[in-house]
């Protein structure tokens, strides 16, 4: 077990280091950073000043190790536009993104667990086919478009929910639903498949033979086993959701980390862009590692 944990942690660290390098390379793609920062009307002198001020006259490798060394200690540099610490900018915006991600995940689980279980119990019935159809439709739905349609319907025509901003919990309902849509198909299919597999196994037959009630068999025996992959995928989906929330944050004007990244891309604010890429990737790596470790604890066969 210990060996498994150590190996998993080492892989996670290596992935994080690789992503760090990629995030750095990403922001150097445009060629001369100083030219972009100085703006279109800058003279050659301005550009030289900017180059000096931001330390861009040093060799690229020095810049990288300097940035990486600081990033490990939590210092992500300073934003060119906001003129504040990137780490405090991200810390300030992160609660909104995490609230959105968790809302989306909870809604997705509330929809896909019951749907998946019922579809498995009624395998190959009309209900099962409807559920699979819904999963298919969900997969094809462009999230930003769904967001706009919800805004028109529930925000404007019915007036039930606020259209944009982050004032109250109501503000998270529509974005949460839209974000959940991206995870529902995968979670429903997995729950259904897991339940079908579990229901066909020997221990369920034993439980039936013992004369246990249907509810007890379903919820205590089958669901517990089917839940293992679902828990793992839920953690992974949360990681995807945090990364993908950038589109939804923009649609609903939620000023989370994704929105910050989108703004910063438009303003050539490279320290922020590379920091957000890094932070989101590290969160994803941490979540998948947690999922793997949790799996190993729940299911000794996986170790």
């Amino acid at each position, binding site marked *: 077990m210990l060996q498994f944990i150590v190996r998993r942690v080492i*892989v996670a660290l*290596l*992935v*994080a280091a*690789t*992503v760090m390098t*990629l995030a750095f390379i*990403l*922001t150097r*793609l*445009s060629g001369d950073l100083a030219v*972009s920062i100085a703006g279109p009307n800058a003279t050659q002198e301005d550009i030289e000043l900017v180059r000096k001020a931001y330390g861009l006259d040093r060799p690229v490798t020095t810049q990288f190790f300097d940035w990486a060394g600081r990033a490990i200690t939590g210092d992500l540099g300073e934003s060119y536009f906001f003129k504040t610490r990137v780490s405090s900018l991200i810390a300030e915006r992160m609660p909104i993104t995490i609230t959105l991600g968790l809302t989306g995940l909870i809604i997705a689980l509330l929809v896909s667990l019951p749907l998946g279980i019922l579809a498995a119990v009624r*395998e*190959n019935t009309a209900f*099962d*086919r409807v559920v699979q159809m819904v999963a*298919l*439709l969900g*997969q*094809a*739905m*462009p*999230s*930003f*478009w769904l967001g*706009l*349609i919800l805004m*028109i319907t529930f925000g*404007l025509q019915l007036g039930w929910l606020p259209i944009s901003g982050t004032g109250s919990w109501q503000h998270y309902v529509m974005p949460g639903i839209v974000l959940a849509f991206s995870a529902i198909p*995968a979670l429903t*299919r*997995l729950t259904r*498949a*897991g339940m*079908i*597999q579990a229901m066909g196994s020997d221990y369920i037959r034993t439980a039936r033979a013992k004369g246990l009630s249907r509810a007890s068999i379903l919820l205590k025996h089958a669901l517990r086993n089917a839940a293992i*992959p679902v828990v793992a*995928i839920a953690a992974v989906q949360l*990681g995807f959701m*945090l*990364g*993908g929330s*950038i*589109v939804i944050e*923009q649609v609903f004007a939620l000023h989370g980390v*994704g929105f910050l*990244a*989108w703004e910063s*891309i*438009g303003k*050539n604010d490279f320290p922020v*862009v590379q920091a*957000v*890429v890094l932070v*989101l*990737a590290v969160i*994803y*790596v941490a979540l*998948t590692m947690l999922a793997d470790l949790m799996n190993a604890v729940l299911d000794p066969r996986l170790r």
Partner: protein
Amino acid sequence: MSTVSITSGPRRGWKSAGTWIGAVIVGIAVICAIFAPLLSPHDPFAQDLGKRLLVPFWMEGSDPAHLLGTDQLGRDYLSRLIYGCRISMLIGVTVSIVSGIIGIALGVLGGFLGGRVDDAVLFAITTRLSIPVVLVALAVVGLLGSSMTLLVITLGLLLWDRFAVVARSTTMQVRNLDFVSAAWCAGCSQTRILVREVLPNIASHLVVVGTLEIALAILLEAALSFLGLGVPPPLPSWGLMIAEAKDYMFFSPWVIVIPGIALFVLVMGINLLGDGLRDAFGTQRTDT
């Protein structure tokens, strides 16, 4: 990545209505994409400020010359929709080709050679999955300027993971089969075995992944164009059409409903076809 077998339902593959619906939708989209100039009633770029935001045919006051109305610059919506289909299909297919080449090469090598090479491939897949796709694609396009070519290369470099996963696992299944051993004994080179023995036998799986990848690329392109960092205007990408019409959606919702439904139907059609092909080939679902 768990492989879960799907119990066979009553109607699957080419016997299922869904597969045919998907095939028809994709067929129409392909025809629209290829013959866009012939099918469009108007020039999709021609502006007519005197005819702005004309309503589509099912609403009162529509102009029979513009079946789906016009946009905020008076451009014919049906023509833009047809040209938009061309852009979506073009990007979907080319991204799928680029990511397919990368993913299949990595997956087949990892699955066939095993050992260190396979460890490296697995590591690459893990790293790729941890990178937030939309954000990185936005950043690349934002830094280098938007163009179709750049978009295709960027998405292609980001979306190879599923190809790699499926190519790797299927190659592992094929590599120890008798006909591969026979080829070894016959003195075939490694390259020849990979190209002539392994690839044809995993091709059906890869076609399925390719279909689903086209759908994913189309959705991503639309999202990026919607955020203003995908296909550059005035090209009629469906995502861009929705973004441009957003300011008018509260007064005339159809301006975003039409391109959105087109996007939804096309992606659904491709997914239906992909699912149908998977069942027709008798392959199992290998994605999560």
